[in-house]
Each structure stands twice: as structure tokens, then as C-alpha cells.
């Protein structure tokens, strides 16, 4: 197992290298000079040239690329061109915000999606099955910005149950320790603030969970249907075992492997794809960090942001692969 993990981690190196290289080339192909963007519309040509020189943008691309790689190896992701702060020191709060939201959304997606899929499969072709699959179809195709604004309109403005945006009550801010506010509030024994943070998580969490929920539901249903046709489930049912036991003890275990793959992929996608949700709910996460960097042509931030997300994506996939062995003892890595 350790050998396998080591091998997988080694495989990461070329993947991430390729990643950095592609991102590096793409963002340099976009028109728009960062020096120009930083200095604003009125800057003179000399000032732009001086800044380009200072930022190393006048060097040949391969020199810039190797400088960047060298930085990464020494734990230096460079400075943000916009804020002039080292990226390594400013990225964590954004990442933490996205983690908290993505994990919350994934929990919602797994609970609702898997249960809906199981019930649909069990009562195949029933009214529940039809409705659930239609809802899932709508869920996949729903534009998030529209959904987000609707959620705000219904649950915040009309019902007044939940806040529209942000991570906390700004009039009573959470003192950030780990920047994962659910943990921070508990560390400080502020249970009132903990609940406020949870309330802030619900609407963006639901919006972000919509697509994964729908996908997980469909995957679970398909996978369960297949398993339920197998002999051992038929036997279990024939033996008169209770429905819940058949489902959760026998069928789900085997149906879960493809679902787990989907969960892993979706979690990775959530990390990088939260831009719209983060914008509508003004969630200060990594998606918005990268998005705003694009507007400013803040190369180091775009590069590092994508690199970090890619790294997490690959790590999640590794974890998923390792989980297979836990679920199914027939799968072994040597």
C-alpha cells in the first residue's frame, strides 16, 4: 500500500509540471499586459516598460517559466502583482473558505443524492423515481446564478430565515484562527457564532450542491439497479430480510464504488468550480481569488491558484482510489 501511495505521489510530479506549463502558456497567450493593468489606463509607456522589467516580463518565456518552477520548489509562489503580497501568505484564508463551503456542499450532495438514488432504484418506475430523476435533470441544467438569486429571494428576503451572503455576521465578526470558521468558533467556545456560520453556509452550500446531488443521485440509481438484479440481492430479498438491511448492508456496498468515483470527481470540481456561487453569495474563496486575478492579469496568482486546485484534485483522486480497498477487499494495490 505504502509503495502504491509513493508511486502515485511520484506520478504527481509530471502531472503538476505539465499543469504549470499549460497554464503558463495559456495565460501568456491572452492579450492584456499585466503592467498596463496594474498601472491603470493613464500610465506612460516608460512606466509600463519599467514595471515589465521589474516583474521579469521582458525575459524570454522559458526563463520566466524556470524562475517560476524554481520558486515553487523553494516554497515561494511569488508575489501577487495586484496586492504585492506573497501569495503563499495570502492564499490560505481563501482556500479555507472554499474548503468549508465545498465540504459542506458535498455532505449535502451525498446525503440527498445517494438517498434519492437508492429510493429511486428500489421503487423503480414509481412516481418517486420519475420525480426524482426529473428534478435531477433540472438540477444539472439549472444556472447557478439564477438558482442563487432565487434562494436569496425566497429564504432571505421573503422568509427571512437565512442570510443572503458572506461567511459571518460582519457586525460580530469571527476571530480567524484556522480560517475554517466552523472550527474557529468552536475553538473560542462561541456556539452562537457557530450557528451563524452554519446559517451562512446553507444557501451557498445548497446552490453548490445542486449539480453534484443530481449527478450522485443518477449514478447511485443506475449502480443500485444493476446490483439489485444480481443473485445475492435476490437471495437476500427471498430470505425475507428487511428492505433497509438489503439496501444498506448488501446492495449499497457493491453499488458504492462507481458512486465514490463520482463523489471524488465532483469534490475536485467543486473546489475549482465555485466561482459563480462564490460571486453570488460573496463568499471570499479561492474561486473568486483566481477570478479576480484573471481580471487583473495577475499571472502569479492565476498560476498558483490553478496549481493548488489541480494539486488538491489529484490528491482527492488518490484518496478515492485508496478508499476502494477499504470498501471492496477484492481490490488490492501492490
Amino acid at each position, binding site marked *: 500500500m505504502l509503495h502504491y501511495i509513493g508511486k502515485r505521489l511520484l506520478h504527481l510530479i509530471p502531472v503538476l509540471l505539465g499543469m504549470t506549463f499549460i497554464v503558463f502558456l495559456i495565460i501568456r497567450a491572452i492579450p492584456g499586459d499585466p503592467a498596463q493593468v496594474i498601472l491603470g489606463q493613464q500610465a506612460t509607456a516608460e512606466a509600463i516598460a519599467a514595471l515589465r522589467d521589474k516583474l521579469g516580463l521582458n525575459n524570454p518565456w522559458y526563463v520566466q517559466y524556470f524562475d517560476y518552477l524554481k520558486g515553487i520548489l523553494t516554497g515561494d509562489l511569488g508575489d501577487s502583482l495586484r496586492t504585492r503580497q506573497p501569495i503563499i501568505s495570502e492564499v490560505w*484564508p481563501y482556500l479555507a473558505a472554499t474548503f468549508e463551503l465545498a465540504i459542506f456542499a458535498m455532505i449535502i450532495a451525498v446525503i440527498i443524492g445517494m438517498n434519492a438514488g437508492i429510493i429511486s432504484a428500489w421503487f423503480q418506475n414509481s412516481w418517486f423515481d420519475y420525480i426524482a430523476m426529473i428534478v435531477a435533470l433540472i438540477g444539472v441544467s439549472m444556472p447557478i446564478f439564477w438558482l442563487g438569486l432565487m434562494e436569496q429571494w425566497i429564504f432571505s428576503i421573503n422568509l427571512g430565515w437565512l442570510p443572503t451572503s458572506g461567511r459571518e455576521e460582519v457586525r460580530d465578526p469571527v476571530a480567524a484562527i484556522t480560517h475554517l470558521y466552523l472550527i474557529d468558533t468552536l475553538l473560542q467556545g462561541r456556539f452562537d457564532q457557530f450557528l451563524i456560520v452554519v446559517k451562512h453556509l446553507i444557501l451557498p452550500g445548497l446552490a453548490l450542491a445542486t449539480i453534484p446531488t443530481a449527478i450522485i443521485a443518477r449514478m447511485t440509481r443506475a449502480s443500485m439497479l444493476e446490483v439489485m438484479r444480481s443473485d445475492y440481492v435476490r437471495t437476500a430479498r427471498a430470505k425475507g430480510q428487511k428492505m433497509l438491511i438489503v439496501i444498506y448492508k448488501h446492495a449499497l456496498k457493491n453499488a458504492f464504488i462507481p458512486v465514490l468515483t463520482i463523489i471524488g470527481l465532483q469534490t475536485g470540481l467543486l473546489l475549482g468550480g465555485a466561482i459563480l456561487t462564490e460571486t453570488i453569495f460573496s463568499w471570499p474563496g479561492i474561486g473568486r481569488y483566481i477570478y479576480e486575478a484573471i481580471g487583473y492579469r495577475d499571472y502569479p496568482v492565476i498560476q498558483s491558484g490553478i496549481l493548488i486546485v489541480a494539486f488538491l484534485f489529484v490528491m482527492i483522486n488518490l484518496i478515492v482510489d485508496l478508499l476502494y480497498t477499504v470498501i471492496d477487499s477484492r481490490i488490492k494495490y501492490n
Partner: protein
Amino acid sequence: MKNKKFWSFGLFLLLALSMVLAACGSDTEKEETSTTTAPTSETTTEEKAAPPQVLVFGRGGDSVSLDPAIVTDGESFKVTQNLFETLLNFGEQDTTINPGLAKDWEVSEDGLTYTFYLEEGIQFHDGTDFNAEAVVKNINRWKAGTEEDFYYFNSMFKAEGADVITDVVADGDHKVIFTLSRPQAPFLKNIAMSPFGIASPTAFEAAGDKFGDNPVGTGPFKFVDWKRNDSITIEKFDGYWQAGLPKLDKVIFRSIPDNSARLNALTANEIDLADGINPSDGATIEGNSALQLIERPSMNIGYLGLTNTRPPFDNVLVRQAVNYAIDQQAIVDAFFEGRAQVAKNPMPPSISGYNDDIEGYAYDPEKAKALLAEAGYDGKEIELWAMPVPRPYMPDGAKVAEVIQKNLADVGIPSEIVTFEWATYLEKAKNGEADAFMLGWTGDNGDADNFIYTLLDKDNIGSNNYAYYSNDEVHDLLIAAQSEVDENKRIDLYKQAQVIIHEDAPWVPLAHSTPLLAAKAGVKGFLPHPTGSDKLDNVSIE
């Protein structure tokens, strides 16, 4: 067997967790209502307790830095305007010159020496004394920096790399004398701009590059905390020199990028004041008694630039024809909800030097066709560039572009609407790659120079003169106006320039919009400033 147990237990946990989460929602709801009702029940017999003087200001973006000298973006100035003070202030809602940290000033007759008499007994938030020496240290800090360090200082007070302010000296504790290399007509207006807020020398010397994270000025509020892309908190400075100010105890600037989401947050009572309201939401806000709609005085221009070096717009007759072809009033009515004024000059009427005698091009398709025929226009399709982002001077670029496209087609100019992502759009337009492009400008200091020279002088081709308009006569007038100290003569020079520009028709001036804000009904004393940097010292919550 073990595995099965593991899974059923896991699922049970997930289910239980979902229950807890659902319960949390309703619990906190109860708690919140009980906390909000508590104070009122205590005070039923007494007078109603005063509401907490905390203002949450919702805006579209985060600040870049809180060191006003190094930034160029409006969102940064919105905060620094309340942390720092300048030697001179603009009027409450205009750009007239008023005392600030300097209570009085004198200008020598030749326009080369400015003497400022400073207010006494003022301290920075860190306890450092504000005096003539502090002013000198600030100016020298800006002078020593390059354009990339102190962009606005360089653009306002340097010409071809040489300092306009050649010397600054302290004469005693409360008198500062500036010597200029040449007369600069808008000098006082320039010095009143947000980037020239006076910072504590002790603080910027100690903090160096980190000063933007720990700003220290003399303003009514002092810096408390900054959660990037989320919120900036500032609180009342107890040692503020103006008695009774500020009225608020705390201001929290929250960034909520989406306009509709920001309005939702206001309606849901999470913020007290919202910047950047869509014109189409104006009527809804007016119909809600819990809210008030606030209009920012207009100091902008939205226009359709015609690249003067590219055919067919290298022909003045074609440019005039386009001016006759476009129905500006219809655009203002439809997309600005009437909250804008049709433009005829390249600057808004609120700015001194505006030439109101000029008659704008009327909407006259027939005349346009005649002019096109006279010009020998070949009917070749043009590219019409539509702005990809809403701006105060142009709420919906794509839709306005469709109307313009229709107007142009009516007179026989076929066009294709093109758009790019914003940074790319600016870059390509600046390179002169557009045929016709939508763009606009919001004034920095309320001076005519900041519109006409910046946007249409030949010096600024490749910079802000995106239309590549070049006219030597206009250039001479504008340069003369820059160093003319006599205000009446200056106004006359700008009026002459506008006459020529009107004839040459480098753009189609479209509209001067009135940007909208909205606040809760209880917010009093908020006066939005045309520059977009709002002072909050007189704001209170009732």
C-alpha cells in the same frame, strides 16, 4: 461483517448530521429573533434606545491596498477617504475647493508658489503630531517614488519625468510652502484628491511596504481589520480634531460583487447602504418604504468612440453622419431608465468650462444618409465593440450596442457587434484595433483638463485617447489652458476646444449617467460624492 457495520454506521451518521443541520437553521432563527426583540422589550416604558451607530456599506469589490498613495482604484479610495485627510477638501457634493488639513492658503501671482497654513493640534491615529514636517515628509515620499509606486502623484505632478513640485519646505510648525516649476491651473484640485491623503510619517517609515495593511492617517476613522475579499472594518477615532465627528462608531465595508445579490443583502437587512444599484432596480427601491434611493451627482461620460485613423471613420463626414444616426434620447430612456442626461460634449455640464452654447447633433437619419452619400461611404461592414461589463456610465453595454447597431443599419452602415473580456477590450481598443467602441470615463478631480485633455488630446493617443483623435489646434488650446491661472480665460479656452471637437466629431457622446445607491430608511446624512469617494463622518443611523 465489520465492513457492513462500518457502512451502515456511516450512513446513519450522515443522516443524523443532516437532521442537526436542519435543526440548526431553525434554532438560530429563534435565537436571533429573541436577541432582536430583547432590547425593545426592556425599553418599552422608556424612550426607544438609540440604534447602534454601525454602518455596513456594501460595494462591488475589495480594496487593493489601504495606502491611498499607491492605488488607482475607486474601491480603495472609498475606504482611505475616511482614514486619511488631504490638505484641501472638495465640496460636500461637488469639486469646489474647501479647507481641509490646511485652513488657509495663498497663491503667488505668477502661480508658482503655494503657501498652506495648517490646522493646529491635530494628531495621527498613532499619536504622531500632524505638522508642516509631516506634510513635507509625505510629499518627499511621493516625489522619491517611481510611477509604478505612486501612480497618481506622477500623473498629476510630473511632466516628462520632471517634478512640477520642485520644492516643499516647512516654515515653522504650521506653514508649508510649495514651489512649482511651471504654473499648474488645477493644482489645488489635484492636491484635494484622495491619493494625496497625508499619512503618519512614523507609520509609513516603520511599515515600509506593509503600510497599505496598517494605514495611519488623521481621518475621522481608524483602521481595525481587513478580511480580504470580504470585509474591511474601521472605527471612530476618538482623538479626531473636529468636534462631534464622526457620528458613527464603526463602518464595515463589505464586498458583494453581484449587483442583484447586493440589493438582496440590503433588502434582507444585512447591509445598510449599497453602492452600484442597477437603474432598472430604481423604481423597486422607491416603492419600498424601508429603503431610500440615493443619486450620486453625475461626473461621467459614456460615449461611442470612432477610431479616427481607421476607415470609414477617418472621414469627418462619416463621423458626423454617425452622430446624426444615433438616437441618444431613446438609449437614455430605455437603458438608463431616464436617470441620465443626453451628452453633447466630452465632459458633463457640472464641470466648469462646459460649453452649453453647442448644439448637439439631433437624431436625423435622413441627414445622416445625405452625409454618408457625400462622403462616398462604400457600405462596408464595421465592427461595433460592446462593453462586456457594466460601468456607472454604461449599465448594459450589450443592449445599448444593439440599439446602436439598429440605428446604424437604418442609415446604411452594417455592423457586427464584437466583445472581449474587459482587460482585453481595453488593451485592443487602446491599440486602435476597434472601428467603433463603447467606453466612458468618470472624472477624478472635476477639472475640464481631466476630461478633454485626458481623453482627446493627441498627447494621450496610445493612452486614454482611444479614438486616436488628433487636432493641433485643440492641443494648443488645451496646453495653454493647463498653465493658465486666470479662471475666466481658462474657461474660454475649454469652450473653444469643445467647438472644434464638436465639428470634428471624434465620438458620439451618449450620456452622463446618475449612478444610484440605496440605503435603509434610517441612514441619515450620507452625501455621495461625484468622485465616488464618499466621506462618512456626518452619517448617522436613526
